[in-house]
């Protein structure tokens, strides 16, 4: 806090700080201003009033319901899958690795069309489901399937790399001490990777919640059945802008909560390490 340090001892260094400051500010504002504008546009009264709108409520519940199920499926299937995938080498492992990453770069609308021509009523597999009286497209199940397809890579990638990095010596020790493989999994492997797995799961949740393209293609847009929050934003902006803005702000709040959760988990992990 000595005033001496404030004097520009080095002209060049000050310039560097200035440039760095402007750059940081520019990037921060570019990312933060749109969110700020969204919140400024809505008065809190309007926001809380619109929260009671049945369209908003049904979209919110549908989104939460489908996302929680998608996440549960991804965790229950994805965790053992990622474990075996990382522990064993098998022919075609590279292909599986690529497929896991594919939904990250595939446009969601393409994913939706692909799901429709596979599971749709006249689709490659869908026609057989249809014979059994099972229809998938345009149902809540389709919403969940689209979310799983698009969002699972976030969890799978994370789980895969965690299991790859975990030293097998820990598990081997547990096994030599007489623990069953299930016991080893629940008492050694999972606790040692829990932090990373949770942050992967949170990212998957966030991506599934924001799913739009694949959902509107494969599941359609029916309020209460397949109209999730992002779809309600799209429809809302064309009719009742307040509804569109309210749901947008809700999604911003949820996204921020997700990011803060991930940050907290990461900080705790770093402290432990």
């Amino acid at each position, binding site marked *: 806090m000595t005033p001496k340090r404030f004097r520009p001892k080095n002209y060049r260094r000050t310039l560097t700080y200035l440039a760095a400051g402007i750059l940081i500010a520019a990037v921060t*504002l570019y990312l933060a201003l749109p969110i700020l504008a969204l919140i400024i546009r809505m008065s809190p009264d309007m926001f809380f009033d619109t929260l009671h709108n049945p369209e908003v409520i049904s979209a919110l519940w549908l989104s939460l319901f489908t996302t929680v199920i998608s996440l549960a499926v991804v965790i229950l299937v994805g965790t053992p899958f990622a474990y075996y995938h990382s522990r064993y080498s098998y022919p075609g492992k590279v292909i599986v690795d690529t497929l896991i990453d594919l939904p990250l770069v595939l446009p969601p609308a393409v994913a939706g069309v692909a799901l429709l021509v596979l599971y749709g009523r006249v689709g490659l597999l869908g026609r057989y489901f249809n014979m059994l009286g099972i229809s998938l497209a345009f149902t809540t199940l389709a919403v969940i399937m689209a979310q799983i397809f698009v969002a699972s890579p976030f969890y799978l990638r994370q789980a895969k790399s965690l299991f790859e990095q975990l030293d097998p010596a820990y598990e081997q020790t547990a096994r030599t001490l007489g623990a069953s493989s299930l016991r080893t999994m629940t008492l050694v492997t999972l606790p040692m990777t829990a932090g990373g797995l949770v942050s992967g799961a949170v990212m998957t949740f966030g991506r599934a919640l924001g799913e739009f393209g694949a959902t509107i293609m494969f599941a359609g847009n029916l309020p209460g059945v397949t109209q999730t929050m992002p779809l309600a934003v*799209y429809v809302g902006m064309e009719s009742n802008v307040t509804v569109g803005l309210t749901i947008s702000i809700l999604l911003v709040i949820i996204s921020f909560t997700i990011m803060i959760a991930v940050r907290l988990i990461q900080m705790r992990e770093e402290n432990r390490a």
Partner: protein
Amino acid sequence: MKEPLTPSKLALISMIFGLLLVSALLAGCTQSTTNTPVSTAATTAPVTEVPTPVVTATTAVPTTVMPTATPAPTYTATEGNLVAYTAASLSGASTSIGPSFTMAYPNHKVIFNLDGTQALKTQVENGAYADVFISASNSYTNTLKSEGYFDNTTVKTLTTNYIIVILPASNTANIKSLADLAKPGVKIAMEAATVPAGTATMAVLNNSANSTYGQAWKNSVISNVVTYETSEPAVATKVSLGEVDAGFVYQSTATAAAKGTYQSITIPKKDNYLQTYTIGILRQSTNKAIAADFEQFMLSSAGQQILTQYGFTAP
């Protein structure tokens, strides 16, 4: 990265941050006080004439020379790209309109932005640039007129369209009449209420229920709806893929489709809803002359012929 964060550094960074934030907030506040669409539309109209595409700059030379030679303005020599915001139900027709317009007016080109009228309206209200706006709904046209986006004298009736029910060619649900749409298990696609075709479909359902089929029929039909699509062609696609058993679309869609794409069930005129399409030039247009040419072309017999060919009903 390892450098310690000295107070001088902190002070600098926070100063810049504070300044930018304050200016951003100020910008935000001033913007929110003047966000009435009417005033912005009115004020931006003359201003946007500055960043006119280079096209007008190059054409300015011949047009300033031309009046001395020929007082009557002829646009055949000018060049220009026209942006036409066009109702999605004109998607098929637009593929013919574009080349025909260029043929009739050499060097003129029209670029279509095709989407549900409600989406196009939202885009224009949020500052999108367009020269011509073709709306599939009188009520949206009137809203845009009253909000000051249209050059109101240029708004004309373009064409009309009726609602029809289309079925996939296979018709696995064995639908033979409008009454069959209420059968349990039938999957129907229609447009969201915000889409003009959705409004028209609702009117058709109400009219048919009142005249012939009754409220129970209407309720069953609505409970058979599996998706409310955001544009009229999206409904047609879901039917052509065979993913739904029936869809409410415009007659033009059924007429223009390749033979064998759909089966269709017509709705009696007395219960039908005549959708009126309008064409108009937007106030912000910087290509008003070409826009007027385009409107004239659309209303001429050549333009109307294309529309009739694509199943639209002349007004």
